[in-house]
């Protein structure tokens, strides 16, 4: 079968942007080393295959380019049969022209420009380099490409060294970064001008490089994926993007679904590769859950670190990212937590467009009910803390809650509802899709996701980690990041670390499918219960942890009953709804209820743990901040409070005020 060949690395290279390039130069060790050096931080992506004809040293770099100028947009629109242009297009003036940046929003199909463009083919699409992240010190994205013909051009600035590729038709342009992307938190990007980068044109080197690539559009960004394969190989004699189906493989859109549908859905390609581990990585992340995959994704995308492996003992997403109640919110109280979770929320809000994967981020609101004056005061304090940080919050009284959710128990309740704290931007996300989206995004950027590979030891030398022993052998790494959630203590103990963490089981549940019953997320204030309804119709709900240390991913009936009691106390009408399934996740309950994203006492060992049962909503920011820490060695601004030594020093982050007892958080 075609699938299995690809999975096992036989046949043509499957990296989506490598297309069907055939590499003709066998790999030897010596030149690989040299090339690694010459290519600096990007490292060399060693693709190992069983068939020598496919072995190659490939450099995979991903660029974000931007359309510049009117004719470029037209040109793009004209090719909309292959580019799924149906949303927002940013028009950026050419450098030297006006300084205005403006955004036009329109569906391509309906806009007159689109129709016009469809009739007038205009010459080359010119792609403009942009600096990806204002905060980034890695000049990863200052690249340049032109694709009117069949070639890209580009500059690479890895770690200070620069290389240029031959420019065939168009001269490069440098344009400004558009400020449309709001990352939020303290790292709000302004409209910045990217400094014109010094280019070193090393013709000798450049000529030896060949490349292939494809377009991807994310919001107002046009991405160009470039893969460089060293040596000679066949480049298709036609622009790759004329292959509609091939593009559709890579890009997900209504169009790609349509085109694939017409072809009997035979052309879809794997969402991620299944590589064998390399012998060395710049960064190894232990844990292929949401946090680990997000970390790898942001490492590659934001910080230019692509020689990364994510090591997962089971299948990706087999941990808590695939077994939670899918809630996202940023209604946190403490200044050490609130900006972080809000940053996460901002990342959620642009996640799907960024990942080109619909994770069904659905902001239908999160309402925390309160039933007493003391709870109202606590929510007032929390809501105000949110507002002070620019997070949306509303305090509803009983009447307002009743108007919004008339089906709650307002008449016979043991603890009558007095009101609620509402965050309208809170909501739910399809949890599995988060893992898959990040995995796909990371994989596309060259990250190796290695499943069914369990870490069984951490090799150390002189206060540094040298690599991990796994069920697939020893793998060296320059830096090791642990993102093992409920198994953090076990993994950390391999490096001789003891953590302020206990692993506890938290159960979650789903009911049979129902027609729309509950719109947003509601949490009960007089018991342990929270509920939302999935897009499939099941009520997804949960309660408190079972309370005892456990690695078993399953809980107890007493807790199930406890949760159901609270559920019916909140919504009497739920009585005859049937619960379909229960499951358990292992929570890394920290001793103050807040996470740790920090270095450890070992030089190059980094820890991301202690998420208690709030890890899912934190996934994007956790990944981003952990990547930040791994890449730069310093904490991201929003994660500064998540220090390992806070327990020792007494700077605790205890939202609930429960103290050093893990099962109370």
């Amino acid at each position, binding site marked *: *079968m075609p699938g299995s060949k690809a999975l096992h690395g036989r046949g043509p290279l499957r990296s989506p942007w490598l297309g069907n390039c055939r590499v003709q130069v066998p790999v030897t060790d010596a030149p690989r080393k040299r090339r690694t050096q010459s290519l600096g931080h990007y490292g060399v992506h060693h693709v190992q295959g069983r068939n020598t004809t496919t072995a190659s040293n490939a450099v995979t770099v991903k660029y974000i380019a931007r359309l510049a100028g009117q004719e470029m947009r037209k040109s793009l629109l004209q090719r909309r049969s292959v580019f799924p242009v149906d949303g927002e297009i940013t028009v950026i003036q050419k450098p030297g022209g006006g300084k205005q940046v403006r955004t036009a929003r329109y569906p391509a199909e309906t806009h007159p420009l689109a129709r016009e463009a469809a009739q007038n083919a205009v010459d080359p699409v010119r792609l403009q380099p942009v600096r990806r992240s204002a905060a980034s010190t890695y000049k990863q994205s200052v690249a340049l490409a032109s694709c009117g013909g069949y070639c890209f051009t580009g500059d690479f600035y890895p770690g200070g060294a620069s290389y240029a590729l031959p420019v065939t038709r168009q001269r490069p342009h440098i344009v400004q970064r558009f400020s449309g992307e709001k990352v939020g938190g303290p790292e709000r990007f302004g409209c910045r001008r990217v400094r014109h980068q010094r280019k070193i044109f090393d013709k000798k080197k450049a000529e030896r490089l060949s490349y292939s690539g494809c377009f991807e559009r994310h919001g107002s960004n046009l991405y160009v994926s470039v893969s460089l394969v060293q040596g000679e190989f066949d480049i298709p004699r036609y622009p790759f993007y004329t292959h509609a189906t091939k593009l559709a493989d890579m890009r997900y859109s209504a169009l790609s679904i349509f085109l694939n549908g017409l072809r009997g859905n035979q052309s879809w390609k*794997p969402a991620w590769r299944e590589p064998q581990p390399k012998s060395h990585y710049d960064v190894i992340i232990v844990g292929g859950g949401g946090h680990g995959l997000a970390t790898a994704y942001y490492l590659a995308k934001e910080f230019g670190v692509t020689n990364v492996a994510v090591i997962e003992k089971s299948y990706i997403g087999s941990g808590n990212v695939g077994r939670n109640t899918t809630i996202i919110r940023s209604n946190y109280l403490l200044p050490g937590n609130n900006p972080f979770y809000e940053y996460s929320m901002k990342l959620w809000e642009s996640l799907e467009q960024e990942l080109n994967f619909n994770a069904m981020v659905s902001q239908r609101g999160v309402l925390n009910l309160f039933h007493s004056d003391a709870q109202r005061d606590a929510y007032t304090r929390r809501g105000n803390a949110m507002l*002070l940080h620019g997070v949306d919050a509303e305090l509803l009284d009983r009447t307002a809650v009743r108007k919004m959710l008339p089906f709650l128990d307002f008449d*016979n309740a*043991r603890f009558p509802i007095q009101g609620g704290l509402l965050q309208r931007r809170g909501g739910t996300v399809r949890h599995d899709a988060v893992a898959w989206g990040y995995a796909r995004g990371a994989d596309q950027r060259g990250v190796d996701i290695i499943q069914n590979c369990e870490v069984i030891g951490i090799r150390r030398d002189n206060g540094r980690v040298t690599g991990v022993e796994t069920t697939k052998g020893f793998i060296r790494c320059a830096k090791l990041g642990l993102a093992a959630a409920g198994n953090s203590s076990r993994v950390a103990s391999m490096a001789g670390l003891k953590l302020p963490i206990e692993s506890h089981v938290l159960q979650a549940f789903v009911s049979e499918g*129902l027609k729309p019953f509950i719109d947003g997320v509601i949490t009960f204030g007089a018991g342990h219960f929270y509920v939302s309804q999935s897009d499939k119709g099941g009520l997804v709900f949960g309660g408190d942890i079972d309370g005892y240390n456990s690695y078993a991913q399953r809980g107890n009936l007493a807790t199930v009953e406890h949760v*159901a009691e609270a559920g019916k106390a909140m919504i009497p009408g739920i009585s005859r709804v049937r619960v379909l399934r229960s499951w358990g996740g292992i929570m890394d309950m920290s001793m103050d209820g807040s996470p740790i994203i920090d270095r450890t006492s070992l030089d190059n060992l980094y820890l991301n743990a202690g998420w208690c049962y709030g890890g899912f909503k934190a996934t994007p920011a956790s990944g981003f901040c952990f990547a930040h820490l791994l890449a730069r060695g310093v904490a991201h601004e929003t994660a500064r409070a998540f220090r390992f030594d806070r327990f020792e020093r*007494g700077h605790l982050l205890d939202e609930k005020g429960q103290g050093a007892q893990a099962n109370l958080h």
Partner: protein
Amino acid sequence: MTSYRLDERGLIDRHTKLPFTFDGKHMTGFSGDSLASALLANGQQLVGRSFKYHRPRGILTAGAAEPNALFTVGRGGRTEPNTRATMQELYRDLEAKSQNRWPSLEFDIGSLNSILSPFLSAGFYYKTFMWPSALWEKLYEPLIRRAAGLGTASYERDPDAYEKCWAHCDLLIIGAGPAGLAAALAAGRAKARVIVVDEHAAAGGTLLWETATIGGNLAADFVTQTLEELRSLRNVRVMTRATAFGSYDGNVFGVLERVQKHVPEPVSQKPVERIWRIATKVALLATGTEERPLVFGGNDVPGVMMATAMRAYLNRYGVAPGRRTAIFTTNDSGYVLARDLESAGVNLVAIIDSRAGSTFPYGGKARVLRGAVVTDARGGRLLSSIDVSFGRRSENLKVDSLAMTGGFSPIIHLACHRGGKPRWSDERSAFLAPETTRGIMLAGAADATDGLAGCLANGAARGAAIAQELGFRPFPFEPGIVEGDVPAAPARPLWSIPGVKGKAFVDFQNDVHRKDITLAVKEGYGHVEHAKRYTTNGMATDQGKLSNINAVGLLADARGVAPAAVGTTTFRPFYTPVSFGALTGAHTEGHFQPIRKSPLHEWAKKNGAVFVEAGLWYRSSWFPRRDEATWRQSVDREVRNVRANVGLCDVSMLGKIEICGKDAAEFLNRVYANAFLKLPVGKARYGLMLREDGMIYDDGTTSRLDDGRFFMTTTTAYAAGVMNHLEFCSQALWPELDVRLASVTDQWAQMAIAGPKSRTIVQKIVDEEISNGSFPFLGAKEVSLFGGQLRGRLFRISFSGELAYELAVPAGYGESVADALMEAGSEHGIQPYGVEALSVLRIEKGHVTHNEINGTVVPADLGMGKMVSATKQDFVGKAMVSREGLVSPDRLRLVGVKPVDPRASFRSGSHILTKGAAETLENDQGYVTSSAFSPHVGSTIGLALVRRGPERYGEEVVVWNGLSKEFTPARLCDPLFVDPENEKLHV
């Protein structure tokens, strides 16, 4: 509509007709029918629409795995969506409605989705609906949500009762089929405590439609006899309509008993459903097998049915599946059905046997096509024909009903709920139960035993062996000779049928078809868990009972590996869905949590109290008078009256702990941060209890009644926690200390009598002299009351800052004593006051409660740093309280706060910002912990935790409440608003 009722056959009572409606259509069934059998008897084969494509669907099974025939039953608060017609017993006037169709079952607009199906492949929604992002919540998602889901639930309150029950036994047998009944008899006769549960209305399992005889008796008669004997045994309990839904730690099984789901109108004395938690020494799973569907095109067209189901409808309910029937089989069981169909006079057209080499000695009339497969079933709302392919030939057969059997998989869910991994058996092409799961054994078909005789013998042997193992003397049980049974040897698996053209469904309810599975593999979601999550296969209400095994087979084929390498998804509770109502039991509405009442509750009630929930207690909030329009008026009056005259407040809910033993003082010295060793007898002292991390846990006063006896009070909220903590300290930390603890919270009714006139009033009922000289501030002693009628405990402590007493009397006398105090105080203007006034009084004095002691403050934060003993060698919290972060001068510390303009007010939970500072979290200076209108000060006052607070008295700040858009200029001040020198306490 071709299915029909036979004139005879079956275990139904043809004399008792039961009218019912389906989608408003009037129909009639018989007593003993299931809703499904009654529908089939009425020729109603189209029963539902599928989830995604809205394809017409018919009844597929006769049991718990039914994916299609899900109806909404009942109305109003009794509306029950997604009820499986196969498990629902028919009752008079039952109302059933089909689901997920619009406008009607016959004409469903949603079926257009079927045409779009190429574009609705597995996981299509992950690839689209991303642009523009704002439309997701507004357009795409609501459409998806409306299209998804099954039945519609009611928001109405459920009128019926539920309950929970425990049971304990030696042997729990799950499944009352041949193996279960045999095991029950064997173990029951041996005198073991046995509970048998079966999910169906009648015990018997497959015996109810078995045509073989046992010991010369009809199978059904064997069931009757066995049950009779079991019911005669005191140590055996047989529960029908009882589904074991989960297996939990400690060998506890969750069982759902449907007590009144089969009656038109439940009686109110009984629950409609009851959850049993059964703790058993050994559980025997005699759960039988699940028959596997075959994955051919159109295998979901109404008229296609599982072979065993067809046999059950025929033999148990007397319903024929159609006028022209065919059987598509992979094993010998198809021929048994053929025999039964023909004996019932059903026109059997053909038997399509996938095995070319089958040699079953079939003697019937139907054509037998060996080495043949059904590739496609045709028809819209009813099966019209099937395409049969054999060798290179293919043929279209006109049939209106088709039975399919792909073999049998043991039902092993409960054996795997506790984490056991099922084992793949190549021989049976099925997963078998894990080798060892403590306390769980299997019997009969679930244990991979073939044939009726085998199952009976196996069950009997298991029952006897378990009884013996548990120490009972075994009692032989021989089930008798079985005749007429055809043991079906394991089927060779047939995962992929070549030549299929139409949609071949794997998960019927979730509309997952064969191509979805292969697509998942193609896209990299080939792991069995990924495939499940990506395609939603196995996530339907049947939890993959029918679909999982075929999905595993197809995944194995697509990946080119063995099914064993694919593995299976995790079996998790529940085996079948369980209602919230049942899981909740009686703990609903007002009974959600117990009610705890003060001994002075009735006193407060007759004095007009408005009550508020405080934990499980009801406390009196305030005592309104007729002329008062708002609660504030009442509270202001109560506060003023305490400061001017005297008030009486019920403080019985405070935790009260008696601490005895010769080391009691040393013990207290270790649990409190401040010193207690030298507290004199007859004195009370305020104590601060820390957690081991140095934060304040609770506060309260503790009095020394005599040398070795102390009386501690705790806050209401932390009473239970403090008791647990003290027990931990005495039992786990310092068992060497001679300390004994007794909770006496409920023994005493305690009332605070506060105000300048309190002494006069208290003296009226206390026999001893209580002048300031003889009973000064912080005095504590036992007193005689009413001329020796009663003994109580009197404490001169004050939360209000006024001259005040707390009087404790035995709870039963509380109300009478309170009445006496009211009477004694009437001439001095005594009034009851509630927690609201209590709160105002304490805020005026800067006294803290758990509003301030919120688990993140250390004593120094509240200005009580000096209380923390520097000299004591050890006390809980000593080691950690001096950590850098906890002694930082930058911490939030307690201050008072007052609005600049007395007419202005603010609320608790508001934050404090430096005047003129930007409104950002970085500039946050703290927050208001408590606030109230103080009649004494004449404005709102508050307590706040503010960065470097006490250094900032006099500073103007903004009390920031963005939630209510109130930004109140205010000034920080000393938290003592009333009587700063505490003179009133000592008068």
